[in-house]
């Protein structure tokens, strides 16, 4: 009887705690339901209709939008460009962030200023970034082209946004320039948590700097790299503003990634429902990616600790 009484008390205590927990998270859950769940449901509902311009009516047409999107060569071209975009940005940003973090980890005079300075490009608003780079890369008075020609690096100004390939690389570099400082700061913070003793022990064992990076730094950064790999990929995939403002998806659709494709479908071609279908498909793809990434890339230590 006494045991039963204890269980009852514990259960009652747990219930009141749980209730408090629910009460505390309820406002956030309601907020998320209003700002994410409702629009998501509305988009799914829209994707089964034939609405053209926002605000006009439509009829339910089943899966027709999905079949048209999946059968469209332009959708798959945009999908390929999105993959190129994510991989390119991942490479550029990872290399730049690692290099910056490793440099900023060293002791040198002015390190404090350098650590603040490096974050500036991330603080600058996107529109300003776009204007700065458009003018700097322009062929009529742009400083970059002026220097390239003046220093004899190129015989004539380079059209950075003049062809699909150069435009894609240019936009990737500009986007990476904007985002790598955030990654560098996170990496730097994580590097400083790696015990110095590990580096000293590795040095005593005769490990070269590269071997120390490979066997001490990288494993130490695994948890943060996992999170950045997941979140960074999702962020990168969904980038719209920089691309749209710099190239509008051009030239000749060369930078039309999926977010740009969806925007054009909704607000240039006025096929809102078809754009909603494409959005749902992209959402499903990103969800699948996240599940697989967590399943196969999660740091082993965390799994064991669960």
């Amino acid at each position: 009887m006494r045991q039963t009484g204890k269980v009852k008390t514990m259960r009652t205590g747990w219930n009141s705690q749980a209730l408090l927990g629910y009460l505390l998270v309820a406002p956030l859950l309601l907020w998320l339901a209003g700002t994410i769940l409702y629009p998501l449901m509305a988009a799914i509902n829209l994707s089964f209709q034939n609405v053209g311009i926002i605000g006009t009516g439509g009829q339910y047409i089943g899966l027709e939008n999905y079949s048209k999107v999946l059968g469209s060569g332009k959708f798959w071209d945009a999908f390929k460009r999105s993959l190129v975009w994510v991989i390119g940005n991942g490479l550029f940003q990872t290399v730049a962030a690692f290099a910056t973090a490793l440099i900023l980890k060293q002791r040198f005079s002015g390190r404090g200023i350098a650590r603040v300075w490096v974050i500036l490009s991330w603080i600058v608003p996107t529109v300003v970034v776009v204007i700065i780079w458009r003018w700097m890369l322009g062929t009529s008075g742009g400083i970059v082209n002026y220097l390239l020609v003046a220093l004899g690096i190129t015989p004539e100004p380079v059209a950075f946004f003049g062809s699909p390939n150069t435009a894609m690389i240019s936009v990737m570099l500009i986007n990476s320039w904007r985002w790598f400082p955030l990654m560098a700061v996170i990496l730097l913070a994580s590097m400083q948590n790696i015990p110095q003793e590990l580096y000293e022990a590795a040095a005593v064992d005769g490990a070269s700097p590269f071997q120390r990076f490979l066997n001490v730094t990288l494993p130490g950064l695994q948890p943060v790299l996992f999170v950045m790999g997941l979140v960074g990929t999702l962020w990168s995939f969904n980038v719209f503003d920089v691309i749209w403002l710099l190239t509008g998806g051009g030239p000749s659709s060369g930078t039309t990634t999926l977010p740009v494709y969806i925007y054009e479908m909704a607000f240039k071609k006025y096929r809102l429902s078809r754009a909603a279908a494409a959005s749902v498909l992209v959402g499903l793809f990103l969800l699948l990616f996240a599940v697989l990434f967590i399943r196969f890339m999660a740091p082993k230590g965390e799994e064991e600790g669960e």
Partner: protein
Amino acid sequence: MRAKAGAFTIALIIGMLFMAWGPVSAQEDVVEIVFWHMEQPPHRVERIQQLIDEFNEAHPNIHVSQEPQNWAEIYAKAPAAVAAGNAPDLLFAIPDFTPIIRQVGAVQPVDDFVAEMDEAHGFFPSAVEPYTYDGHVWAVPLWNMAHSLWYHVDMFEEAGIEPPETWDEWLAAVEALTDEEAGVYGIGLPANRHLYTDQTVYDFMINAGAFELYNEDGTLRFDNPDTVEALDFYSQLYQYSPPDSPNWTWGEAEACFVSRTCAMILQFTVIKSYEDQGEGDPENLGVIPIPHAADLEESGTIAYPNAVMLLTDDPDKQEAAYEWLRFLLEPENYGRFLNMEPGLFLPVTEDGSEAESYWSDPLVVEYEAQIRVMLENSQNGMLFGFTGGNIFPSIAQISAQNLLAQTLQRVVIDGEAPADAVAWGQEQMIEAIEAAEE
């Protein structure tokens, strides 16, 4: 003591209620008019605000306020605002934007008001025509804009060439003026997927005789030898345009011209930037009609009669909005309104084109010769989808997707043969129209 305090509190509350109620009751008699326009540069917003302030002061029962928008976003934002019930009372328009807003059921016909203004000020018919279809007039014309060919006079003189009138002369002039080593390009032509490129492509189409996009029965006639000829010639000139032209909008073209990197450009006007950032020498600023193909006799150009749509269905607001527009179109105000950007916005009324308020602006006085040429050019202006007395609102879908610019990109960027690109363009246009009819 307590009773006194209670009486004081009650008196205070009643007093506060009166104070709060007073202004509200006064505001109830004021009709609020919100109007969206896409003239974002600060000096234009400032000039419009000056006129608004004068109007509001003279009309205490009406309060007009402006909310500047962006042309790049308005095609998405305005339908969304209508759907959300937050539409403005007045919304600026160009002819191919009006059908989009009409499709969401928000535009009110303005036949009677346009007739009244026509009687009072005399609208140029070409300004009203693009807004007249389906039995009504759908917007009140406010100003016109037309492309011209702008050039540096001294560059022509140094090269010993005359301003071109035909395409052969134009190509020869562009070749002669290009000196890539010196960083000078004979012409600046855009190839961006942008409205500016649509406009320049249409300039070439007009001057090749391909100005009709539709047949009389509403079928498309974009795919024809004249359009192919226009795109072929565009690509010939484009070789002499700066390498970053595929990313140009109006601003980059103007910058290229003002910095003397481009000897010529097609533009509505360059006067303000030429005066503020360039040489500022009216004698050295040349402007002529756009050259035409050899088999045509005269030049044509793209022209955009800009207008304002009435979206509110509230009779009080409608009358207040009309009062504001009457004020704007009065000759003493109209010139100042147009000169928010001197030399860009051309009058669409007979008395406005002679108004002292228009011709007395210092910049207009300085560049009067150029503005006279612009006005003359605008008389031969036309707009794709709004020609020949047949107006097909499906042009809105073609325009919104920049299909003229996309067709050009296939030629000058992807290297496709003009005939194939034009055939592709027509397919895309048919698809766009069918999608709109679904």
